[in-house]
């Protein structure tokens, strides 16, 4: 796995907040088209890592390469323009707007204009199509309901649609499955599979290990801001360091 083929390459990433080290010298390579899962106990720095990669937080040290280009310190809009998109753990849509109108803003992104060859297209229509793709039933007109009235399952799908609207090559999903029932998770998985089939690379931060292991190619484990394991799900779960991280040092 040489870094020349990796779509995303993170090396020596370090972030401290005041006296606390949130992310400590993390190295990571993500290959084109794979689905990488990132797991770890609460507070292990997973979301901070995503913030560092997507440009919302500037690192104290280290480098991030996306498609071979250095993006360390770039603002989020530039990184999105290059083909990365992320979702947020805390889903906060524009509550008073209808669900589909929530997608208009990402569809106004310059990236869309470039991809569609100089025009933006009919944003309303594209938004409605996108929502149908993520499972908003067309005949129930769910897409027209104000976002504030939607239950969590739909909100998560909306969040996913907002990321998909940007037509990213790398999609980072921060705890997409949290707060969803098994059935809801089962209904979202095919959408993710379809994205993979389209050739997209996906990184998923998750606490729902069982559901994640079914779809992920590889897993990376963080604890206290450091990467403590990496590999296939069976290898990773067998590792002593991982067991200690999740269960505490009293185990084994």
């Amino acid at each position, binding site marked *: 796995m040489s870094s020349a083929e990796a779509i995303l390459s993170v090396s020596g990433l370090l972030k401290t907040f005041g006296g606390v080290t949130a992310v400590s010298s993390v190295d990571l390579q993500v290959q084109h088209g794979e689905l990488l899962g990132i797991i770890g106990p609460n507070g292990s720095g997973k*979301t901070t890592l995503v*913030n560092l990669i997507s*440009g*919302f*937080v*500037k690192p104290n040290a280290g480098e991030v390469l996306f498609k071979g280009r250095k993006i360390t310190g770039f*603002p*989020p809009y530039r990184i999105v323009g290059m083909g990365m998109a992320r979702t947020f753990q805390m889903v906060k849509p524009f509550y008073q707007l209808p669900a589909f109108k929530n997608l208009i803003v990402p569809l106004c992104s310059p990236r869309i204009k470039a991809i569609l060859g100089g025009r933006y297209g009919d944003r309303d229509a594209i938004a409605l199509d996108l929502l149908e793709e993520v499972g908003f039933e067309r005949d129930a007109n769910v897409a027209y309901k104000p976002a504030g009235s939607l239950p969590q399952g739909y909100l998560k799908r909306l969040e996913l649609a907002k990321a998909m609207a940007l037509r990213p090559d790398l999609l980072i999903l921060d705890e997409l499955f949290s707060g969803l029932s098994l059935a809801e998770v089962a209904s979202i998985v095919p959408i993710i599979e379809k994205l993979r089939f389209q050739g997209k690379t996906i990184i998923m931060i998750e606490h729902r290990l069982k559901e994640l292991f079914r779809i992920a190619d590889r897993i990376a484990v963080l604890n206290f801001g450091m990467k403590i394991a990496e590999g296939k799900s069976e290898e990773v779960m067998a590792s002593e360091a991982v067991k200690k991280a999740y269960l505490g040092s009293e185990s084994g």
Partner: protein
Amino acid sequence: MLLGTLIYGFVNSCLLALLAMGFNLTFGISGVANFAYGAIYIFSGFTAWIFLNSIGLPYALCVISAISLSAGLGVLIYHVVIKRVKGLALSEVMATFGLGLAIMELFRYFDFVGFKYTLPNLIEGSVAIGDVYIDYQRITVILAAIALTGFIYVFTHHTRTGLAFRAIAQDERTALTFGIDSDRTAALSMGFGSALAAVAAVVVLPLGTIAVEGGYDVLLNALAVCIVGGLGSTVGILVASVLIGYAQTLTANYLEPHWMMLVSLIAIAIVLCIKPSGIFGHQKELEERI
């Protein structure tokens, strides 16, 4: 000349620090917008004057009454106005600013205008340092500033109430889970800040007259110091006060007095270009707020 500039510059710096402290405590440290600050300053001045001249109380009592009444006014403003628009930070600003406006202009309407409105010096007399004479009142300004700064620092870092002040600014929800009554704390902060305004008024106003325009100037100066030093940082206020204070005095002595305000403007402009959140400000820029 140099010694004079050195000393009077220091007095000016302490004056600015005194003015800004109360405002910073409420707005910078607790996050409660109190744009009626200038009005409260003037209110306390006039109140002390009324108690002294119209009612005839001994001055010490006037001072205490003025401070207490100002504190009460601050708490009242919180409960009547600010509490109802809490959360919408800018509504707080507008509402308190409007109120302050009303209060100040009310004084003007009732003809509290003119040179007879002055407060007596706390201590009469002066002393010579080298060949420079400095009156005791100005020394009081220096001492008050030092005492106040020390007090505020200890208060906000080492007492429960003070730490509560800082907590409600950072994250109200979390503060609530720690059992901090954010309403009570905010009201207390308003009261404190207003009391500090009154203390500043009692110490500084004897140097001149009590004028409604002074209220606007106080708010202006406090804002300027806070912008340059960094909202919320006690150390920043001190540094900014010294910088602006000396710059103003130097300008007044070596150029012309009416250029003094220009100094504050230039200071703000420089800070905005180099470090917009202030010298010691820890306003995280947008990118870091997740």
